[in-house]
């Protein structure tokens, strides 16, 4: 998966100034996005992928992307489907229609979370100030997506590039997450 595709979908919010802008790491707020939570059985995955416009990954912690689409594996029967903000209603309807009577659950969670883009050579260091996961490129290759915990907040981390991570948290936790990231990064300003 190329960095470009992910960045095609998750873009800095033009209306917001950077939360952090250092030579080694920056934090940008991402623009709003369509997020659909899809729960379904294996038999429905193909149809769901077709209706969505990107295949649903079956391997754990993987993301499948196509133009303006990303399907993130969240659990063995759970995917988060990402698309541009304006596609929400159309996608919802398309998937519902395609899946019809197949047992599934499709729920709009677009506004449940917010995303930030953490990038730079110190990005993984910064995330490791609060996240336990080994972010070395061998253990957590580009394209890996997972839910985890940042200090006392649940978050989702998706590596979209060697030095780029998308971090999502439920909206009411985002101040906590960004606040701590910015605070922890301040030592990088010391020469």
């Amino acid at each position, binding site marked *: 998966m190329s960095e470009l595709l992910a960045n095609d979908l998750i873009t800095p919010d033009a209306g917001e100034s950077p939360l952090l802008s250092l030579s080694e790491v920056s934090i940008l707020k991402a623009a709003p996005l369509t997020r659909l939570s899809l*729960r379904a059985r294996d038999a429905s995955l193909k149809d769901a992928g077709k209706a969505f416009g990107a295949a649903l990954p079956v391997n754990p912690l993987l993301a499948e992307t196509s133009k303006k689409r990303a399907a993130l594996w969240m659990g063995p029967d759970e995917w988060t489907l990402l698309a541009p903000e304006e596609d929400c209603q159309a996608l919802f309807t398309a998937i519902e229609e395609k899946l019809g009577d197949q047992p599934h659950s499709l729920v709009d969670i677009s506004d449940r979370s917010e995303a930030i883009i953490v990038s730079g050579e110190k990005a993984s*260091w910064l995330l490791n100030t609060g996240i336990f996961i080994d972010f070395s490129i061998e253990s957590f290759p580009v394209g890996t997506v997972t839910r985890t915990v940042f*200090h006392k907040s649940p978050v989702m981390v998706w590596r979209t590039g060697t030095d780029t991570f998308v971090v999502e948290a*439920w909206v009411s936790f985002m*101040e*906590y997450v960004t606040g701590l990231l910015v605070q922890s990064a301040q030592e990088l300003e010391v020469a």
Partner: protein
Amino acid sequence: MSQPFRTEKGGRIDRNEQLTFTFDGEQMQGHKGDTLASALLANGVHLVGRSFKYHRPRGIISSGSEEPNALVGIYRNGDQTPNLRATQVELYQGLEAISQNRFPSLGFDIGAINDLMSPLFPAGFYYKTFMWPKSFWDRVYEPVIRAAAGLGKPPKKPDHDFYGNLYAHCDVLVAGSGPSGLAAALAAAETGAKVILCDEQAEFGGSLLSENSASVDGKEPADWVAVTLARLGAMDNVTLLPRTTAFGYFAHNYVALAERITDHIANPDPKLPRERLWQVRAKEVVIAAGAIERPLVFPENDRPGILLADAGRTYLNRYGVKVGHKVLVATASDSAWQAAFDMADHGVEVAAIVDLRETPPKNLMAIAEARGIRVEAGCVVTGTLGRKRVKAALLGRLMTSGQVASGGQVECDALLMSGGWTPTVSLYSQSRGKVVWDGDKGAFVPGKSVQHERSTGASKGLYGLQATLEDGYAAGENAAKAATGKSAKIAYSTATGGEASNGGTLGALPHDRNASRVKAFVDYQNDVTAKDVKLAVREGMHSIEHIKRYTTTGMATDQGRLSNMNALKIASGALDRPLTDVGLTTFRQPFTPTTFGLFAGVSRGDFFDPVRKTPSHDWVVENGGVFEDVGQWKRTWYFPKNGEDMHAAVARECKIARESVGLFDASTLGKIEVVGPDAAEFLERMYTNPWKKLATGRCRYGLLLNDAGFITDDGVIGRLAEGRFHVTTTTGGAPSVFARMEDYLQTEWPDLDVWITSTTEQYAVAAVQGPKAREVIAPFIEGIDLSAENLPHMSVREGTFCGVPCRLFRISFTGELGFEINVSRRHGKMMWETLAKEIEKHSGTAYGTETMHVLRAEKGYIIVGQDTDGTVTPQDAGMTWAIGKKKLDFVGKRGLERPDLKADGRPQFVGLLTTDPKVKLEEGAQVTVAENPATGTSAEGHVTSSYYSPALDRTIALAMVKNGQALEGKTLYVPMPEGSIPVEVTGTVFYDKEGARINV
């Protein structure tokens, strides 16, 4: 001249950079590279503290983190840190150190009277006295004991500094950077493994930094360290962490490190954390923690000027400091001889080498002879003179009979001692490994590995430079191989010199003094003597844990690193049982005392716990609302206007909501979308109520029990489509309800085709309640017919609010016409502000949780967690109507059939009205039958909710009262300290009993 004890040259200090510091206000000089201890010694200062119990003068005894005596308080910028070891405090310009546990001064300490009275204070004396008169314990004895105890002064102000955290993973973590640690790190790193090397000291190299009589690859040991570090530093796969203590070894190879970042810097950048907690998951750990020298236990072995021999050598070679002008060396092992030789080579007079052994190694004897040093073999120190500094030592000659004959007196201003070496097995022991006794080495050494670790070098009892290097390389190679499967052969460096030290002794030395009159210290800081250990054994303390606790040996801030082995040997002797039978006390983390702030990390202030805010938050702040904490949420409590207190504000809010309209932020309520063909079946099984027949577009109140039969949560559930429900939960219950649903779904009913998704934060929710509610929302809602016919009470529809999709519930928690509008969270602020503006047109008000509570109480609606407490059944709560009678099963149904849940006399939910309508009951107050119940009377129940009701212009209360529903109309009492309050038992609905207002 300043620094009279500084050598002419040598050492690793920077002689070009002179630093000024103060100790107890006195200004002194040292150099960059000094520790506070080495700088004090350079100035001839040995007396640096007072002991814990007897307040005896104490000096620096070691050069490392095992130091029990030289504890000081460090002050800077208003921050104060007690109990720091002078041997670990790095000198910086302007450092301010204060001695501890003395009053009024270090030189003259009133507490020293304890030393004179010490015959009254043997081990455990406090268990035997201070019992009479009884009242004196808390009032007299204890305050005096407490004032005398403790070491440093506690910090008085909040800490200015902050602390960092970092999670890390590595293939090989090497703890310790002496010869074996450096070799291990290098060998592991050369295989490509990810290596973290940490050392508690400022410089890597450990013993190599003070070794000047050996060489590695033909280089000075310190130069070899530099070369090795350069190699390690150049590798991307290596992280070097000086000033970093591996202090805790936890389950699953999780090792905690404390990195000290700014304490050694004169003016640290405030953006730097003071310390950082590294939480490292290491595939393999190499423990290269070295060994520490043991003191000799002889009478008066605690005088300032008495040091461990290796410490004396370290001060000389590494710091360029002479510990005295005339030094006596007392030893039972080889290593101290080298200290004597180095001293002599630096022009220090060596008064004598006193070796316990009858025949010390010949080669050492020869070197001593060559330097003209007097040697007394088969000889011990039996006492010392000099109160604040050692002046002389008494010698005793060991006789074949086992007796000791007086061997005269030797003058000296410093005494270096060595009882041999104790491997540092703390980390190994923390890893839950069991140490084993090695009789040859006279030490406990690591046994089998329990976790993925290996000890190397001196920490496993292996000595000698060449041997430890080789062992280190092998340990590094093996660790890397085990972690990554990779190996690489590197060229081993070879050492000459630095031979293994032989010899050593454990326990107290024999002497010719009156045993009952002298003190031979085992544990310096806690003033535990050999006598104390023997007394404990005499009194029946036969387990080493009892001995430790009774005497407090090993419980000081050095955790017994100097004392444990000697105490054990003395106990073993007193018990006449082999040392291994007596057992070793457990090594606990942390390895050395570790700053609280390090553990607390970033969790302080607003980051102590996430502050969760709703979309109305900013508006509430601007409009003067007051918040309350509900779980992590900030919820608006009430909106005081014009200086109102809470009572006035709430009364106004209630009145307006009933008369006109109120606006309430209900966003924090938990929301769960239940979707799938079996959604109704699932809810049928979870909740007490029936769901299958609920029509699309309708809502129902749902009651959730646990399988024990008690109420745990409630909320309104709306059916959006055949297979789609919008479930709401309480605010605090949201996560647990979701988790319990997942539990049942995944593990009990995996066959159901239904999924749940949390939508708590997907939606912002505004409740608009009151007679004008429909008028308030009408201008903004599209796509929904708001008429009572089309949208009756307990309905739900989807439409738009100001053009954005919404879910509109017609529900009420106030008893008034009410709507709850759900829009996606991003539009929550817009919705709130739109409605807040709109209600102004109707003279409406925004209201908070307190008004919400009053309005619902007037209607007798329960609040789960306030009116219920986890012991309340639906019957108790008067909610049998919520139970689907025809249902075969739901969570809690079987629990409700248990005998006590059906028994008579259970508390039931009722209303209470005080005879005097102005008297408001206290929530939690007890309800009794008797007006003036005797103490010990069982309560009939308690008040769960109590408010002033503006609608009724009187107080109302809800309560749980035994058999309460049958007591309606009866008078009961609420006994209070000021007198009993009569109350009448009523139904739970106080206002609009017919429910007319809700159906308009």
